[in-house]
């Protein structure tokens, strides 16, 4: 029952989740080679941006960038540039320097610098200064970066890009719900209900764009579902929105914007418009809202 040799679907454990890549429309051997290459790219992003890996750019920055400029890989620089832009556009609500809070609530392990410092609530200035030649330094001494809110989307974009560069006509990259799709024929993507992971909330059709979801997950430490996203205005985990799905031109944007929708709910509207993105948000007390642009197209899963 081997399917015809023009479609492959594979998965590898990367980025702390399962990354799945589908590719079709070329010879099976070429598709496999392209998919292997795309997985290698995702593994590269993982190595560069992991909070846990001591040798990653993120760990090097957390050890050194408070005291001097540190050179990073061009990809890390690009993610930091996106982060800076979104930090600016959101008035500080998109913050990649919230590792201290995540450590405090047990969502990240304590680093080598001992006890996590506790963030003062309220949006803070941009944590990273972008210097020439892919060098960066922290703007404050208390910065601890975690790119968990954006790196996965970036990795997905890079993987989709390499597949296209290698001549794959149609494909989909899914890193634990952060998805990029390309090709003439759209892919059907199902959106899980953040309040009940065994339920599908809706389906959308995706082509040449990205989609990402952030939502509650059961947390053993808390004994209840919670959302692993820090609201910088309170210095605590966001608690009114159970989950959000954002669709945008790139997955990196979709990934980052889901965090903003979870933090600011309806008022993320202007930001979504600015980036030509659309969103679905589910609040804990049951409201399901969609941006107008998306409302028409969204349909119940069939």
């Amino acid at each position, binding site marked *: 029952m081997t399917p015809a040799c023009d479609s492959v679907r594979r998965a590898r454990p990367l980025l702390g989740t399962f990354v799945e890549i589908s590719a079709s429309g070329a010879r099976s051997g070429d598709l496999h080679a392209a998919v292997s290459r795309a997985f290698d790219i995702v593994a590269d992003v993982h190595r560069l941006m992991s909070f846990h890996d001591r040798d990653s750019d993120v760990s090097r920055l957390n050890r050194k960038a408070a005291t001097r400029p540190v050179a990073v890989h061009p990809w890390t620089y690009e993610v930091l540039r996106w982060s800076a832009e979104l930090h600016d556009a959101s008035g500080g609500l998109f913050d990649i320097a919230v590792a201290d809070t995540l450590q405090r609530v047990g969502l990240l392990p304590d680093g080598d610098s001992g006890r996590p410092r506790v963030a003062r609530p309220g949006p803070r200035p941009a944590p990273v200064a972008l210097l020439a030649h892919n060098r960066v330094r922290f703007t404050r001494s208390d910065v601890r970066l975690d790119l968990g809110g954006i790196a996965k989307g970036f990795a997905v974009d890079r993987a989709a890009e390499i597949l296209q560069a290698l001549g794959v006509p149609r494909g989909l990259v899914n890193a634990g719900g952060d998805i990029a799709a390309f090709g003439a024929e759209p*892919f059907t993507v199902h959106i*899980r209900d953040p309040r009940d992971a065994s339920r599908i909330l809706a389906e959308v059709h995706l082509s040449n764009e990205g989609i990402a979801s952030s939502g509650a997950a059961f947390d053993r430490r808390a004994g209840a579902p919670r959302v692993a996203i820090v609201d910088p205005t309170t210095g605590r985990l966001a608690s009114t929105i159970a989950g959000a*799905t954002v669709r945008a031109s790139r997955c990196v944007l979709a990934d980052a914007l889901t965090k903003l929708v979870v933090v600011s709910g309806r008022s993320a*509207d202007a930001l979504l*418009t600015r980036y030509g993105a659309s969103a679905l948000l589910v609040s804990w007390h049951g409201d399901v809202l969609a941006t107008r642009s998306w409302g028409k197209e969204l349909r119940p899963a069939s």
Partner: protein
Amino acid sequence: MRPTTGWVRWAAPPAIVVSIAAPALAMRYLSVEQAQKVAFPDATRFVEAHVIFTPADVAAIERRSGQKVLARGQQVWRAFSGDRMVGFFIVDYVIGKHLVIDYAVALDPNGRVGHVEILEYRESYGGEISNRSWLAQFVGKTSQDPLQIDQDIRNISGATLSSRHVTEGVKRVLALYDTCLR
């Protein structure tokens, strides 16, 4: 407050929302043979090494990896390109809270991990997983055995699965390499 005119309340017909369950999680990505080819595209042959654990092996692997050894042996192949050994291909499985996952680890001749590729996964059911006979049906599965595999498994955006169990399994596979293959 700025009026937020951009949102519309979206209501799926309630009957539909409550009746649609997420699809059963089951997916077969690659057969062992396909995964071997993907792992070592230049290999001309794969020679199976029949690794059967002695009690001392089990103890050593458990000590080195901190993982429990459930199997009595391991499916291991040596990949050759002509006469040159180009690496090891090892098939393993892990049982998580939600999934049973078959995966393959490609090692270079020095035991360094090239990559980990998922072969297939199936949903595991909390209570039943401790039942040995239920477990037995997954042990030694070949790619020919029919399981309830949904080839049209959906692309889902939402709550994600952790790959922690596989990461732990790979530690055990590396301890197996140190113990039995090095």
